[in-house]
């Protein structure tokens, strides 16, 4: 009885899941194909990939023989041994990815630099400020906390245009700093909020005993606070990386120079150039741009889930 019920549950969930993931399947599938092949049949399996598998299988089995291959690029047919055919098909399967990587490589570098610098700034400012606001009594303590937290009520739509004017006046247009500094300024708020509620929850005895042992404030922060706050720290870090990786509009507006595109803005710009006529290349670019976060997601699934839910509730 219970078993049949579960069976229906699995089936309906999988139906929803496959509808959700279907577009991504076709993106991956068609990223291996040329436009001609796609126009011929949108839903087909990539021919080159199929041939690659067949020829590899035959090579491994040690079959001798030749195969006629169609070189779409040079518009000729040639006869190759299985071993050469493997190499030929491997090249055509990976062609879109190679071209995509050529375009995306500088954008990847920019994105990595911006993400790392921002995350570093946010973590340092966020944790230090939260530590001071949480553990020291001084005049203005509360006011300063509200000064930070109040900015959460200003939506991005209010500050987008004036922020652009500000960055322009500061002469930061077309630079990585235009992406990093405002992101640290804005990102530290959430970090302060999360860190402070964590620090507030730590027992005072912990600090007292450390002080009795002769720990100074810096060593207290470095040797006690930071190691303790590792789970919070990783949540803030992941949320920050996710936000920066996805941020499109701001980089698109402030950095029009190709040199400073990040992945998000670079993908959009790529989709508007002539290279975008090759759909396979675009799809390969989408897949490539998802790989770093995919690795991070697999590596830190738990933190992602924590971040998603703790960001929404009283953190």
């Amino acid at each position, binding site marked *: 009885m219970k078993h049949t019920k579960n069976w229906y549950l699995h089936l309906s969930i999988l139906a929803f899941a496959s509808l959700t993931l279907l577009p991504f399947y076709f993106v991956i599938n068609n990223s291996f194909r040329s436009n001609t092949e796609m126009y011929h049949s949108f839903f087909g399996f990539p021919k080159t990939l199929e041939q690659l598998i067949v020829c590899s299988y035959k090579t491994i089995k040690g079959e001798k023989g030749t195969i006629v291959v169609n070189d779409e690029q040079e518009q000729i047919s040639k006869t190759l041994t299985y071993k050469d055919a493997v190499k030929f098909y491997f090249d055509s399967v990976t062609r879109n990815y190679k071209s995509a990587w050529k375009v995306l490589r500088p954008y990847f570098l920019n994105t990595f630099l911006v993400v790392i610098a921002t995350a570093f700034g946010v973590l340092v400012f966020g944790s230090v400020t939260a530590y001071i606001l949480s553990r020291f009594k001084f005049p203005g303590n509360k006011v300063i906390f509200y000064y930070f937290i109040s900015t959460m009520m200003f939506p991005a739509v209010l*500050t987008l245009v004036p922020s652009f004017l500000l960055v322009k006046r500061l002469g930061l247009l077309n630079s990585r700093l235009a992406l990093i500094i405002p992101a640290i300024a804005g990102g530290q708020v959430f970090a302060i909020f999360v860190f402070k509620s964590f620090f507030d929850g730590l027992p005072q005895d912990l600090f007292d005993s450390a002080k009795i042992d002769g720990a100074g404030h810096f060593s207290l922060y470095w040797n006690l606070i930071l190691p303790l706050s590792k789970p919070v720290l990783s949540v803030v870090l992941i949320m920050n990386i996710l936000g920066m990786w996805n941020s499109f509009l701001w980089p698109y507006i402030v950095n029009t120079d190709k040199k400073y595109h990040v992945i998000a803005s670079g993908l959009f710009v790529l989709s508007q150039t002539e290279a975008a006529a090759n759909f396979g290349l675009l799809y390969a670019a989408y897949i490539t741009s998802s790989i770093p976060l995919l690795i991070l997601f697999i590596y830190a699934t738990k933190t992602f889930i924590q971040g998603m839910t703790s960001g929404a509730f009283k953190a």
Partner: protein
Amino acid sequence: MADKKDKPFISYKLRGALVCYSIIIIPILLLGLFTYLPVFWAFQKSFYDFEIGGISHFVGLSHYIEYFTTDPTTYISLVNMAFFTLFAVVVRLSLPLIVAKLIISIQSERWRHFYRILFLAPIVVPGVATMLIWGGMIYSSQGLINEFLRLIGLGNYTHAWLANPGTALIAVAMVGFPFIGGFEVLIYYAGLSGIPESVNEAALLEGCVGIRKFFLIDIPMVLSQLKLILILTVIAGIQGFEGLIILTSGGPGYRTTVPGLMMYFNAFSFQRFGYACAVGVILFVLIFTLTIINFKFFKSAEELQATK
């Protein structure tokens, strides 16, 4: 060098405070410069007419008056925004909740965990790429939907979904189908798993199971989660326009335009920065009012802290 026997020049307490101030002054200034100043400018510059590098004129409230009287895009963009927002509210309050309920009904903890991860996984794809996939692969003339229609012999029903005035609006709203966001599923799942076992057992004893239990027990018990998603979806609906830059640029005509998009075009295409600031202020007032209403009518201050 002060002699140790002397009274300190400033008291220890004050000195401690000064050290604190001097450390957190950098974050304070950063926030002042990059958040509070733009907020102030948004209001101030909405009263001025200027181009970058040009002279600015004080124009008083005329940008606001123009927006509500003569701007031909105002009405249609507000209507579109209301449509997109309502649509999003309906689908995001229902479908992910159903999926979360399905997941939590599964006996095996491992499968529950797996499914939650499965629905969360698409967040690794950059938002821009997702939009480009919808615009370029799903809705395009040789795209997924049209090819599927041809495959099943309904070739007559193919459309240029985003370019056709009759289908553009609904096509944009349908982006993200089937609307099972990993974030929403996680939130609802957390809410459902927070229902005390005693409540579930009492419901079972009373014979309240299946769909009846879902409506009578589960939904009232996850009200605060529903409210959270409601306010987040409304805020995103009012200020979201990034996707439209990628999908339609508000076209065809003004068929899919929204106020935020008009703000963007006024600033970055027409160089009317003052007017764009005014539109931004209007949207802020709208978001702020709705947030306050949500505060007042649904007392859930805690959830609101996430509405960044």
